[in-house]
């Protein structure tokens, strides 16, 4: 099973959607690559990923997250990489936002749209968050 994911939003909910599917796929022997673009880059930004915002008006879910004992995004990022999930940061967005490869989780690679398309063209599952 080959899974291609585009992460283009930078909120806490977005992060859980992306990393839960990615780790679940990797745990099911899937090959997973995530292309982080625009605000999605927040999800792998070393500092940014520790303080991802809840959607406005949904802050009360913080307690629910704590009670449900879901892992932190930091843990999910580490776990994803440990399980072989490949991170690709979008070069164009990095240029626009003035970000460097070093700003992102270790092991993140940099590429453009064609890099993602080359991977996704024979993927079994393609998801966009």
């Amino acid at each position, binding site marked *: *099973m080959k899974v291609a994911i585009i992460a283009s939003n930078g909120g806490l909910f977005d992060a859980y959607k992306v990393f*839960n*599917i990615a*780790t*679940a796929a*990797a*745990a*099911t*022997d899937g090959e997973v690559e995530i292309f982080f673009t625009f605000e999605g880059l927040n999800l792998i930004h070393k500092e940014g990923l520790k303080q991802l915002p809840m959607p406005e008006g949904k802050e009360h879910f913080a307690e629910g997250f704590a009670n*449900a*004992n*879901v*892992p932190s995004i930091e843990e999910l990022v580490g*776990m994803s990489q440990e*399980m072989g999930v490949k991170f690709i940061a979008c070069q164009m967005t990095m240029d626009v936002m003035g970000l460097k490869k070093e700003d992102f989780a270790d092991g993140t690679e940099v590429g453009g749209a064609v890099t993602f398309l080359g991977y996704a063209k024979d993927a079994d599952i393609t998801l966009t968050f």
Partner: protein
Amino acid sequence: MENVTKTLDAKGLGCPMPVVRTKKAIEELSAGEILEVVVTDRGSIADIPMWAKNTGHEYLELVEEGDVLKHYVRKGGKTTDKEETPVKTITNEEYLEIADKGPVTLIDVREPDEFAAGHAPGAKNIPLGQIDKRMDEIPEEGDVYIMCRSGGRAGMACDTLETFGRKNLIRVAPGMGDWNGPIE
């Protein structure tokens, strides 16, 4: 359920942790062995069977005990069920009695790090993956005892050796995972 080789306690963890932990835990088992996964995540009722189906493992049973869910999964791949293999098997205790009476040939087919952490006195380490290449180190005459952690790898080693015509093999099961004898 009987014959559980390993229990994974993932109680209190939410999605996707139960499957992530299950994957890691089953990697440590041999084909045919049974993993017990103890969780409280109700999403796992659908997730673990689906995970097993897609990863080639056999989902056996769900047991609910109040809020606690126990899943049983048999690791897929080449099995070494006792019914299917003609490999002669003795227990740890039977082996210890034999070893007490005089020198024996014992091959431990676990990985070198497992072997280094503790093994039966006099055991020689030939990891399962090297067994076909190092067959000349295994005597063709006299009883040869084969051991691993739980019996799975020892069974596969015996199968491999038997396909090369060896007939003097005795599996010691379960092996070092449940060992009450002396350790070197």
